């Protein structure tokens, strides 16, 4: 399966759309600082707020694509999320697993590589954004609602490792 990407433009407002969803361009500086902001707001649940918002938003987009394109196999549905990750400029992921959970490796990561470009290596994993994203990938693949999977980042490029690694478990 190869994700179909349809870019469109609203002529009056110049808003941009990808597969019918409004999208906007920012840079690694933006997501690095948003990540730092949620880290600093740990006492009000900052990282979880970001993770939840990413999961809910992405799951809706994946499910919309799956429905419009009549996809039914878990592998095809999983590939929607995996390929969207690269289309959004977020990097490249390798996904393995089943309905009960699995493992995701990030061989390229906008968040981690952006963090390192901006500040250098960090002392712990910071990719809360991708935790939410990966939860949405598995939920879409196995037709489950948001919050069905817990995702833990166990290796981090931002913390100096060569790849990111995430363990996914059915909640």
């Amino acid at each position, binding site marked *: 399966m190869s994700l179909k990407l349809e870019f469109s433009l609203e002529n009056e407002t110049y808003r*941009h759309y*990808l597969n019918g*969803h409004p999208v906007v361009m*920012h840079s690694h500086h933006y997501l690095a600082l948003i990540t730092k*902001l*949620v880290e600093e707001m740990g006492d009000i649940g900052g990282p979880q707020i970001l993770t939840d918002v990413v999961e809910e*938003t992405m799951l809706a987009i994946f499910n919309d694509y799956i429905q419009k394109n009549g996809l039914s196999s878990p592998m095809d549905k999983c590939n929607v999320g995996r390929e969207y990750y690269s289309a959004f400029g977020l990097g490249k992921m390798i996904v393995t697993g089943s309905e009960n959970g699995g493992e995701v490796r990030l061989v390229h990561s906008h968040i981690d590589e952006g963090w390192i470009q901006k500040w250098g290596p960090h002392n712990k994993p910071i990719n809360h954004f991708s935790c939410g994203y990966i939860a949405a990938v598995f939920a879409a693949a196995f037709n489950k609602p948001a919050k069905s999977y817990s995702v833990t980042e166990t290796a981090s490029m931002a913390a100096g490792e060569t790849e990111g690694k995430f363990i996914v478990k059915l909640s």
Partner: protein
Amino acid sequence: MTVMRDTVVKSLAKINVQGDESGLIPEYDVLVNLLPVSLLNTFAERIMAAAPADKKAKVEEGLVRAAYECGYHTGCGIITSDIFNDVVLPMVTEGEKDILRGAFAAFTAWGWAKSGIVQLKEREKMVIRANDYYEAESGGEGLRAYMLRGLCQAFFELTYSDPYPAGMDTYTCQQVKGIEVGDPHGEFVVTKK
């Protein structure tokens, strides 16, 4: 000839960015991302709602700062890019003022806000009016175009402050009107700190 805004907007709006074989978008001397507007709006709304009264100013400052640094570094990449050189620079006859006009045409073309400069006192003050911007649709309370505040400050600094990257944090931007609170347009005022 000064910068013809409609021509610039139409030329730049056609550009679509896409991930390369690494799934990254290295453009304008940064790594670009292309994210759903609903994600950005919902995140801003929820983090502001979660912050207690004594932390709201810090969260707001963090949201503006993220946009500001993004705008400052990416904006520098934009105004020195081949596409900007090809499309905007041939029309520049009024120096810095035209560079700024071109930058705000890019601002519109790339969907950040349908906006333009309504008042400009070079090196001192700029007023931007936005007739359409995605943050106007975010939930929450009060004026909340954090991204636009950061970007307006960044673009003014790139034009009138010390050369990149020494000119950071010279100006500030306040939002004085907002579609999100019932005004007919958003309005943003950049002044010296």
